[in-house]
């Protein structure tokens, strides 16, 4: 009896909590939808030229199809070779820019890994030599990763001029912030006993890190780094939009000259590149993990 009463009370409470949470979430959802103009009514011109009131989503969706339709090139079976040649007419420029895009991603990843790796140790709660260094390095990494690459790129284009240099620095800085955070989380999960052993043998703080911590986190570091390279290829393909080198500048040119088919060609190039690099780095990561498991 007592148990059944208890159980019923328990059930009632769980239901009340569920209902309350649902109501709160629904209200939040409606508020954000309203704030983002989800319920806006807009005027549209109908086919016969008259004006009408329509819900914004209903009015806008057809235009998405329109835009995509514009970017699709004219490809005919009979003239396929020639059509593709026209579609990719600027391939020589794009090939050079694609190479530049990948090189920007590579350089930026290298710089970011160096910065993030070194800073991840003072930014780990269990390894920082004191609270001030922990605080400083954590704030630095936070700033580096919260500011988007595009914003850094705008600043660096202003400082160092238009070109890949600005892109490398922008993505590199952001990468250092993002990787430093991931690395430091890996650092915080290590076994501290080897570090005690190094310390007890007379090793300095850097010896403790080099001999005690680094061997433990190395597989994680490798895996995160490859993952980051994939992300950076995507980032460097758009960063040229603000003049920081790579394919992105062609997006801007194509949009301002309304060369819609160029956009789809660029999209295809980036899709293929990113897919290929994703696959390669995934294979490499699995190799690393596989080696790890066997050793």
């Amino acid at each position, binding site marked *: 009896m007592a148990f059944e009463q208890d159980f019923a009370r328990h059930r009632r409470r769980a239901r009340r909590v569920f209902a309350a949470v649902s109501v709160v979430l629904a209200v939040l959802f409606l508020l954000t939808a309203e704030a983002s103009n989800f319920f806006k009514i807009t005027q549209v011109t109908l086919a016969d030229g008259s004006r009408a009131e329509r819900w914004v989503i209903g009015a806008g969706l057809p235009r998405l199809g329109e835009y995509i339709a514009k970017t699709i090139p004219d490809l005919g079976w009979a003239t396929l070779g020639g059509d593709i040649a026209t579609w990719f007419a600027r391939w020589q420029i794009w090939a050079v820019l694609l190479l530049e895009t990948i090189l920007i991603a590579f350089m930026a990843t290298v710089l970011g890994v160096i910065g993030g790796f070194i800073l991840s140790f003072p930014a780990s709660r269990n390894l920082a030599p004191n609270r001030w260094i922990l605080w400083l390095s954590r704030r630095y990494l936070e700033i580096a990763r919260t500011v988007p690459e595009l914003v850094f790129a705008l600043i660096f284009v202003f400082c160092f001029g238009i070109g890949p240099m600005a892109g490398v620095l922008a993505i590199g800085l952001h990468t250092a912030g993002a990787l430093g955070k991931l690395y430091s989380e890996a650092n915080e999960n290590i076994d501290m*006993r*080897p570090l*005690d*052993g190094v310390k007890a*043998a*007379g*090793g300095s703080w*850097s010896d403790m890190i080099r*001999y005690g911590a680094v061997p*433990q986190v190395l597989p994680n570091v490798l895996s995160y780094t490859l993952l980051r390279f994939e992300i950076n290829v995507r980032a460097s393909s758009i960063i040229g939009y603000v003049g920081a080198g790579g394919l992105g500048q062609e997006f801007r040119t194509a949009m301002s000259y309304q060369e819609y088919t160029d956009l789809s060609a660029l999209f295809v190039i980036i899709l293929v590149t990113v897919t290929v690099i994703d696959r390669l780095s995934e294979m490499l990561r699995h190799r690393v993990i596989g080696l790890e498991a066997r050793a």
Partner: protein
Amino acid sequence: MDRPVLSLSGLGRTFGTTRAVDAVTLDIRPGEFVGVIGRSGAGKSTLLRLINRLIDPTAGRITFGDTDVTALRGRELRHWRRDCAMIFQQFNLVERLDVLTNVLVGRLADHGFLASMAMRFTDAERTMAIRALDRLELAPQALQRAGTLSGGQQQRVAIARALVQSPRIMLADEPIASLDPGNATRVMEALRSINRDDGITVLVNLHTLDTARTYCSRIIAMRDGRAFFDGTPRQLTNDVVRDIYGTDGLTGFDEAVTSTRARPPRLRETA
């Protein structure tokens, strides 16, 4: 023989409100083989960590000859840690590094920043490490990863690491608590050989009374952070033991229950 004496005077360490080590005053003479016994939580580990300066005391002083150990900072502190090597219950090796590098960690106190970051060691240091490993019968495993060795082998690697520090004192914190009887005996024999053949002072925490009686020339018992008994194994009578461990209603006390004894093999004497 004017080798320095290790003196603790009024040494204490509090964690929050707990007095882990409370006003311990002791003299450890060179060449002694001292066993520290006591219940879990009696402050044995803290005492050893205080001596090695892995943790700082909240009261009292440690001196070694004319050196005030409690005042050491920076490079001098690191040299003190080198001179007073430490072995841990869980070995504290870097499992992902090879055995040889693990032993060479014992040489880091004398290394500069760049050489140590590049893991560069001299031929002389490598020779020293191999000798130490050979003495502990582990030379064939030198290039294996430390994590692939058994517990007993790992503890002997840790002893080799301590040996290449060329220490004057060797501290061992429950070195055989996670080992089977055979390996425990080999480790204790190694410590005995280091004490007798190399003249290194050994201070070892033990939780098995018969091991302490077999190997130690002097036994210190700790209770609630204080040095409760200090004497020869012979002076450690059953009444004293009952006081140390506070057997709470247990009428008998059988040392064989906790025994990890096995027949000692002869350890090679080299180096």
